[in-house]
Structure formats: C-alpha cells, structure tokens
C-alpha cells in the first residue's frame, strides 16, 4: 500500500474507533472513487455499514471482498469483524483458509485460521489444522490445541457415542506423543486427566497422579484436585482417599468440606463393596467410631471458628442412622447450641432434620425451650433459627388457619421488639430481625393458599413493605413482594420493586422471569403502552453481549493455554445462547407485538424465521427460583410454587406449545418456504438440536405432547386447541394460494436491488415464465369447524366465572387469551383479504365463512372490554383504598394508616390502569380488524 493511501485510510479507522460510522462511510466512498477495487477500503466500508445496521448493503460489499480472496492482515482483520457482525462464521473460515494457503509459512495466519474454526465450532477442522501447525512450527502448544479440539468435538452433543470414544482415543494418542510430560503445566495435566477419565483409564490416570509432579499440581490446583477425587471414586479407591483426607485434615489443618466428605465416604466404603461378607458390618462400625473420634477432636479444637468438624459428625450420623438414633438428636442439639447464633444454622441443619414421631417431639422440645430473648443480635438469630427449624417440621394438623395466624402474630411481635436492636444501623445495612418479617409474610401467603382469601396477601404485602422500608437492601423481601403484587393484579408495583433490585448482566437471564413470566397478561401494548415490550428487549441485551463477547475469551483461553477453562466458557456461552428464559421472553414479546403493530406479511416473515430457529434449539433452563426464601413447612408447597401466577410455571413444554401454535399460524400466512428462507438467510444457521432432526418441521409442529401441554393453564390449553383447529381448516387454502418459491425469490431480489443497487447473491432473478397461477383446482371449500365459534363462546362463560373469583388476575388471563385468539384469526386470514387473490383462486365462498367467526369474536371481546372497564371504574377509588386498609387489618401504632393507605393506593391504581388499558386495547383491536 502506498504511504499516501495509508495516510488516507487512518482517519477511517479513527472514525470507526469512535463510533462515527457515518463519517467512516463518507471517507470510504471518497477513497473508493479513486481506488474502486481496494479491498481494505471496501472491507472497512462494509464494517461501517454493518455497524449502522445496513445489512443488505454490507452483504453485497462483503461478498465482493470475499471473492477477491484477500490475504493481507488489515483486510482480513476488518473482514473478520464484518463477518462476525453478520454472524457468518463459515465464510470467515473459508476466507482465512484461502489466505493461509497462499502464505503457508505465516504462523500468525495459521493461528487466525484456527481461531476462525473455533468460532464456528468446527472442531474437526480445527483439530486437523492444529496438528498440521504442530508439525510445521514444532510448537507444543499447537499439539495441545489439536488435543483439546478433539475433546471439544467429543463433547459436542451432536457427536455419537462411538465417535466420542474414538475422539478421546485420538486425543490420548496425541497428548502422549508430546515430547514433554503434560505435568509441566497444570492446565495440560488437567486436560490429560480429563481424557483418561472419559476413557475410564483410571489406573493410568492414577499412575500420573501418583508422580511427584502430579501430587504437586493437585496440591495447588483445585480443578485438577477435583478430577483426582473423581478418578479415585471411579476407581473404587474410597478407603485410600479417606485415609489421605484424614491426613490432610490432621497434618495440614485442611478444613475443606470435600476432605471431610472423603473421610465419610472412606468410612462406609467396605459396605459399598461387599456388605454380605461376614465381619464387614463390624469392620464398618469400628471405622465409624474412629471417624467419629477424629471429627469430634476437630470440632472441639475448632470450636466456633469452623463448623466443618461438627457438620462432618452430622453427615456421618446421617449416613449411619440405621445404627443409632439418639446420637443424631444429640448432634443437632449440639450444633444448634454452638452455631444457632449464626444465620447459616437453619440451612446447615435442614438436610438432617427430616424427623418423625418421638425424635421430632424431642427435637421440637429442644427448640421450643431454647431461650427466646431478643436482647442481642446473636440471640435474635437464635430465635429466628428455632422458628425456621420448627416450622420446617410442622405437620398438616398443626397448619390450621388459626394456628398459622397466631404464629404470624408472634413473629410480628418479635419483629417489632427486635427492631430496636438495629435502630442505629445505617440505612444500607440489613436489620437483624428481617427474617422474622419474612417468616410472617410466608405464613400469610400460606394462609392465603389455604383459604383463597385475598386479605392475607394484603397482610403479607403491608408487612413486607414495612420491613423493607426499615431494611432497604433486603432483596428477598422485594422478590416476595414482586410475586405478591403480580398475584394481586398490580404489575406496575411489582415492576417498581424489580427495578429497585438493579438487575444486571446475567441476572437478566436468571431473574427476569420474576416480572416477564406471562407478562402479556398485563401488557397494554394494544393500547400503545410498550412498557413490557421494552422490558423484554432490555432483558434480552445480555444474549447479544454474550454472543459478541464470550467467544473472544474462548480464543484468549487458547492463547493463554488455559485448557481447563475452555469447555466451561463454551458451556456458559451455550447456556446463555440457548436459554429457556430467552425464548420465553421472546414469545411474550411476540404476543405483545402482534397486539401492538399492524399485522402484516413483513412482521410475519421476520418472526417466522426467528421462531423456526428457536424451534431447533436445545434449551437450557437458567432461571433461578431458589433465590426466593422458603420457610414453608415441608408438607406444603414451597413459597415459589405457591406464588406462581396462575399456579403454573412455564417451562420447555409451554415454550414448545406456543412455538408450535405461532409457527404453524405464521408459516401458513407466509410466502416463505424453506427454499426461500435458505436463500434469504444472512448469517449462519444456528446449530440444530438432535430432537429437531427427528422429523420434518411439519411433523414436529403437528405433535402435541401431553406432558408439554400440562404446563399450560386450562385457558391457554383452550387457546392452543382453537388455534390447531383453525390451522387445520385453512391449511389447504394457504398451500393452494401461496406463490411458488421462484416468484417469491424474484420479488425479494427486486426489492434488494432497488435498495442497494446490487443483485441478490445466488438468486436467479429472471422472472419465471408462464402463468403464476397453479394448475390444480381450488380445494373444496369446507365449513369452519364448530370449535372456533365455540371457543369464543366458552371464553365468554369462563370470563363470567373468572371475574367472580377472588383472584384479580384470572379475568385478565381469560380476556387477553381471547384477544390473542382473535389476533391469530387475523393472521390466518390475512392472505385472503386481498380481493384479487380471492378472485383468481375462487375463494369467495371460503371468505364468507370467516364472517360469523369474526363477528362472534368481536362481540365477545367488546363485552369483555366493557366488563373490564366497569371493574376498573371501581378501582383507584377511596373506597377501594379503605377496603385495602380494613382487609389488611394491620393498622396500629407501628403500621400507620398513611403507610398502609399508600400501599393500597398503589395496588388499586395499578389494577385500574391494567384493566382500563386492556379494555381499551381490546376495543381498539376490534375496530381495526372488525372487517
């Protein structure tokens, strides 16, 4: 490149660096006038175009550069960013491979080609390439790259079992061919052990571990040590491992809980192997007493400093319970005495305290008689722990409304008394008594569940709001409140709390279900309020940053030879990429989108492509429900289950069910078939899960599985059956009218050319000759299935029932689903709105059959809207606020009138807004699509 040109290009980089894509494009255009074929400038322009979302233009330029087979670093680098932006990893591989072929001595280019394969998950090519590089450049690193590529290919879910073994064998052969032993670096050693473990070569693994180098690594490297433990276990060397752990505990003062577990495992190992043989039991018993002596010694030595010894005793007792039952009680008691003033005591003891009968009575006795003083933070913790432990074991007969209410009363009383302890704490600190409020809130929710009486939810809300005001950072209370407000039909109040959690990063994946689960029930999108739609978009940002950032770190881990991390990073990337919540959010967004935007073939086409990708995914559920505190007795549902909206958690089955419904409706309404879609696709096709390969799309869509459907509410189930009936009826007519692929493609090409001035890649744009109309006759016109009108009539009846229940959300659920059914009807009949289409295809008779269905739908929706408006008129009033105060029944000196009133106001105002907005939206949709 000439120095002059170089000087002119620099400002383009600067513009790109500072995000001024527009000026970058201007600068490129200027240069391209003089040097129209300069690949670097073209590539930079393509990059600026991608970054300004001008995908079509970028594609055209990008193809041109690729054709020129660039080989210089700068162009390759710019193109790498372009192709990543477009999701075209395969093209990136081709590009680098061609460049590397031209300069086979260029090691850096070799590495880049390898990384391109890594980004595309082309493990096989990556492995071959790394092997080749190893031979050529004699760097051991490349040998290891080829080893881990092989391992990663084996780990790929799409690799068959036989292939997997072969790949691990290959990896083993490669790694043992290295000139230096793997133990010179812990991450190489880790990789070596992983392979041996997979191949069940435990003895060989053990031999490696038994070398001084191997022992040294395990001493300092937790990841390697974990594999070592695993291998010892698989090898059946539990006893040996137990001895080793004992030594560590005694000699090195190691207090890692895993060592204690190893000792316990070792203690019982003879039983595992041959419990039938005489003497084994005795042998075991003597080992138990040895271990007991060891742990007792440790626990006495450590006292309150470390709980490992005592926890070890509990674990030991738990596993040998058949032999002695009073000892467990003694241990529980001892633990409670020693660590009862630590907040972790309840969680520590829970696994060991599933007790019955006499034992339970004694345990409860111990807890009941424990001091109930609230004079210090420690004593408050002890009281809280005893409440939690007692509550955990409550039996059904102890769970009467009356008994529960008196428990709540006690908790509240102690809460208020104990508040004094923290009165001088800064507002950023948690109050020591917080958990007493959480306990009382849990009791109220449980009573609501038992009685269906909404006043108990009011009580829970007031109490938790009060406690939260005293302890602003008590996020668990916020989460409980979010659930409660949604049950109360007050989504805005729930959202306020959610925002105060300041959810960040990956939490958007794990926690957004708190407000996004079935949020279309509360969405006012149809009347123009996009609050929840933007909430969905915001929560989905994390998936974009994941797909852009994470693979960079995979590459870095390769460069730094941190092999132990590579599979973890890839798993992490995959879990986010294929997150279940991601697609639950997507579906909710879509349901709101069709209510908000005019339903058109553009929207249908775009959404269809995306939904089909989702349909091929193997989802991973990252949602965190554990984060909700649960202090409900073990005989009843946990707090999470109790407070799910409509009592159902949506999971894979829910996603599949709705996906099938929408994909069916959209693919009928769309002109895109698979051929067309393939041609118009911009990026690479995402990996297809195994399940997705089992049948054709059509077959898979038609499958309705009991288990999947069981995740739906009854009303959702009605919607799905209705949609199935509608689709089955209209399918032949859609297929008949849909233009052939060649016509659709020619049209798409024309549009692209109009926009970018360049032809669409790989598409023949000559219009197909002959008439477009199909040869066959119009399929026989059939009557609409009765189920369609019936659906709307049934929903009307359901609505009447729902509005009379105590639940403020059920009517909304029925109404929004009825609206959704109507919109699906609009989608399915869109094609037949064009008069010329109906005329050419002689479908006049079909279209007349739409009318009565549409009419019923509109009538039912209008009725529901009117009813909702009526209900909403009563909300937000002073009577409702007063009612809230009365029902909550908590007004007193501490819980003052205004405080409760304010909560009541928020709740009823939010309800009003939702009911009103949904009614308005429904009326609007009726007018829009009435004809």
């Amino acid at each position, binding site marked *: 490149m000439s120095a002059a040109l170089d000087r002119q290009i620099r400002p383009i980089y600067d513009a790109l660096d500072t995000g001024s894509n527009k000026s970058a494009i201007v600068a490129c255009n200027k240069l391209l006038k003089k040097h129209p074929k300069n690949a670097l400038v073209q590539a930079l322009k393509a990059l600026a175009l991608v970054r300004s979302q001008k995908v079509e233009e970028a594609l055209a330029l990008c193809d041109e550069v690729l054709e020129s087979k660039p080989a210089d670093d700068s162009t390759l680098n710019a193109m790498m960013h372009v192709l990543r932006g477009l999701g075209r990893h395969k093209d990136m591989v081709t590009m680098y491979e061609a460049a590397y072929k031209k300069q086979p001595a260029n090691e850096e280019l070799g590495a880049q080609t390898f990384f391109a394969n890594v980004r595309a998950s082309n493990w096989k090519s990556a492995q071959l390439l790394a092997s080749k590089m190893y031979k050529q450049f004699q760097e051991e690193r490349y040998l290891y790259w080829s080893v881990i590529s092989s391992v990663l290919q084996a780990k790929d879910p799409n690799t068959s079992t036989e292939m997997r073994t072969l790949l691990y064998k290959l990896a083993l052969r490669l790694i043992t061919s290295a000139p230096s032993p793997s133990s010179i670096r*812990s*991450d190489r050693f880790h990789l070596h052990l992983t392979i041996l473990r997979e191949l069940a070569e435990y003895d060989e693994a053990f031999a490696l571990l038994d070398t001084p180098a191997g022992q*040294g690594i395990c*001493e*300092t*490297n*937790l*990841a390697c040590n*974990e594999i070592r433990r695993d291998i010892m276990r698989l090898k059946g060397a539990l006893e040996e491992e137990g001895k080793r752990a004992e030594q560590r505990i005694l000699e090195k003062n190691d*207090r*890692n*809980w*895993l060592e204690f*577990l190893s000792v316990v495992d070792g203690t019982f190992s003879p039983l595992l192997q041959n419990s039938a043989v005489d003497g084994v039991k005795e042998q075991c018993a003597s080992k138990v007493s040895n271990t007991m002596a060891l742990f007792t010694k440790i626990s006495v030595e450590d006292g*309150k*400093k*470390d*709980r490992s010894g005592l*926890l070890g005793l509990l*674990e030991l007792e738990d596993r040998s319970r058949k032999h002695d039952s009073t000892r467990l009680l003694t241990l529980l008691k001892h633990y409670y005495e020693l660590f009862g003033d*630590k*907040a*972790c005591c309840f*969680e*520590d003891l*829970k*696994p060991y305290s599933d007790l019955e009968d006499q034992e339970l009575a004694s345990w409860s006795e111990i807890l009941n008689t424990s001091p109930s003083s609230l004079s210090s933070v420690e004593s408050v913790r002890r009281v809280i722990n005893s409440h939690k432990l007692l509550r955990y074991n409550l039996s059904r007969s102890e769970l009467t409304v009356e008994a529960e209410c008196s428990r709540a009363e006690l908790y509240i009383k102690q809460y208020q008394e104990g508040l004094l302890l923290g009165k001088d704490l800064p507002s*950023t600190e*948690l109050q020591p008594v917080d958990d007493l409020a959480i306990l009382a809130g849990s009791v109220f929710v449980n009573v609501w569940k038992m009685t269906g009486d909404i006043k108990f939810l009011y009580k829970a809300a007031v109490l938790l709001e009060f406690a939260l005001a005293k302890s602003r*950072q008590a*996020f668990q209370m916020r989460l409980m409140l979010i659930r409660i407000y949604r049950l109360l039909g007050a989504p805005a109040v729930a959202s306020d709390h959610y925002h105060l*959690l300041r*959810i*960040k*990063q*990956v*939490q958007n*994946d*794990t*926690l957004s279900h708190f407000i996004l689960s079935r949020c279309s029930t509360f969405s006012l999108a149809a009347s123009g309020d996009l609050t929840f739609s933007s909430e969905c978009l915001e929560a989905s940002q994390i998936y974009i*940053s*994941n797909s852009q*950032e*994470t693979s960079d*770190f995979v590459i*870095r*881990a390769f460069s*730094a030879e*941190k092999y*132990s*991390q590579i599979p*973890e*990073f890839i798993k*992490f990337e995959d879990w986010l990429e294929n997150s279940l919540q991601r697609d639950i959010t997507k579906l909710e967004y879509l349901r709101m989108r069709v209510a908000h935007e005019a339903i058109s073939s553009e929207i249908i086409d775009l959404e269809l492509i995306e939904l089909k990708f989702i349909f091929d995914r193997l989802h991973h559920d*990252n949602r*965190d429900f554990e*984060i909700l505190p649960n202090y409900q007795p073990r005989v009843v549902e946990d707090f999470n289950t109790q407070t799910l909206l409509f009592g159902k958690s949506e999971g894979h089955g829910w996603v599949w069910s709705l996906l099938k419904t929408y994909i069916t409706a959209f693919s009928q309404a769309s002109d895109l078939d698979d051929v067309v879609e393939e041609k118009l696709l911009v990026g690479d096709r995402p990996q297809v899960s195994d399940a997705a390969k089992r049948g054709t799309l059509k077959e898979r869509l038609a499958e309705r599985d009991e288990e999947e459907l069981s995740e739906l509410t009854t009303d959702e189930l009605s919607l799905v059956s209705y949609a199935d009936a509608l689709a089955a009826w209209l399918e032949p007519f859609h297929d008949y009218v849909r233009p052939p692929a060649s016509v659709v493609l020619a049209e798409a090409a024309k549009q692209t050319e109009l926009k970018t001035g360049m032809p669409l890649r790989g598409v023949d744009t000559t219009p197909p000759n002959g008439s477009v109309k199909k040869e066959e006759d119009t399929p026989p016109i059939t009557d609409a299935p009765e189920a369609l009108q019936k659906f709307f009539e049934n929903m009307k009846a359901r609505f009447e029932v729902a509005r009379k229940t105590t639940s403020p959300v059920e009517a909304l659920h029925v109404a929004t689903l009825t609206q959704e059914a109507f919109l699906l009807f609009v989608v399915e009949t869109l094609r037949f709105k064009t008069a010329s289409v109906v005329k050419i295809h002689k479908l006049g008779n079909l279209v007349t059959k739409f009318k009565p269905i549409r009419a019923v739908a509109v009538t039912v929706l209008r009725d529901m809207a009117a009813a909702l408006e009526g209900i909403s008129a009563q909300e937000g009033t002073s009577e409702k606020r007063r009612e809230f105060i009365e029902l909550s029944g908590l007004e007193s000196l501490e819980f003052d009138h205004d405080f409760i009133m304010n909560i009541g106001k928020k709740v009823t105002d939010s309800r009003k807004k939702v009911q009103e907005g949904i009614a308005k939206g429904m009326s609007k949709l009726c007018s829009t699509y009435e004809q």
Partner: protein
Amino acid sequence: MLLYFVLSSETWIFGQKHLDHVLQYNIGFYLHYLSRWPDLCCVQEAPRGRMMGYVIGKAEGQAAEWHGHVTAITVAPEYRRLSLARKMMNLLELVSNDIYRGFFVDLFVRCNNLVAIEMYEGMGYSVYRRVKEYYGNLGVGKGGRDEEDAFGMSALAVCLSGRQETEKVPLDMRKPLSRDSARRSVRNNGRDIIVSAHDVS
C-alpha cells in the same frame, strides 16, 4: 467446600444478594480473570451447594515486583467468622508462592474497612503505601492503555467500586512470600508513604 471458580448464575446472584459490586460487572470481567489466572480464583460452597464466598486474584509485576494480587474477596454475611476468608487467602498465597513463584501477595483495601484491615494484619499483611487520590477513572496508566480498563475494572477500581466518594482512599497492603526471605517487598513505615493512583498498577 473449596471449589475452583466456575461461571454460574449463582455467582451473579451472590453479587446481588450481598450488594457486591464486583460480581455485578460484565461478563468480560470474569472471563478476563478466568482466561488468565483460573487457579487464583475460587469459590466456597456450602455442603448443599449454596455459594458462601469467593476470591478473585491475579499475578502481575516485573522482576522483583512479580507478585500475586487479591482483586476481590467476599464472604456472605451469614457465613462470616467461620474462617472462610482465611481458607481462601491461604489458597491464594499458596498458589502465588508455589506456582507463580511471586515475591509477595498484595491487595488494596479501603482505609475505613477496619474489619478487613484487621483481618489482613492478623494474616501477616502490612501497609506498604497509601494511595493519595482517586478520580474514578484510571483510564490511561503509565504503560499506555490498561487492558483491564476495557471493562472499567482496574484492580484499584474493583476495591473501590460502589463506595462513597469520601471513602476512596485505599491502602496497599503486602505480605512477603518465601521467595522474598529478606522481606524486601515490605516496610515498616508504609502508612507514611503516599503515592498517587497512577503509580500503582
């Protein structure tokens, strides 16, 4: 139990629970550490899988300044005073000593975090210097652009993240490792030595 650090939602939740600003940073922050010093990062899990605490560290420095650094350490409030921090610090020191062969371990701590300072002193750390002022943006260090600033996260920024402006006066504390048997990396009058943020890495 002491486990190597794995990326998980748990880690983020933990950050949320304990108002731990470090754990709420972007994906890049973790991945950066894990792709370079996985053995200096670990978590403590309770017997039944709850996360109790974590430490994130790195190795850095030239020649006699080559050392291990504790970027962040936190134990959940309900698990404090049970020696969890001690166990994690022991591991980090062990790895810095045996694997990285560093001369010392150091860390930054806010000067008003008395609990932590006392803990470190109990473990053999001493103040090496005080950092004078901190303007929240260490964008360009002396060696040009700091790699970690790409994530808005220099080690110093981690120590100070999410705190009040007035508290932003960190101490740099050190403990010599076996390789520094002459104890050249520490000094007695550290509290009197004041340097500006640009002079620390």
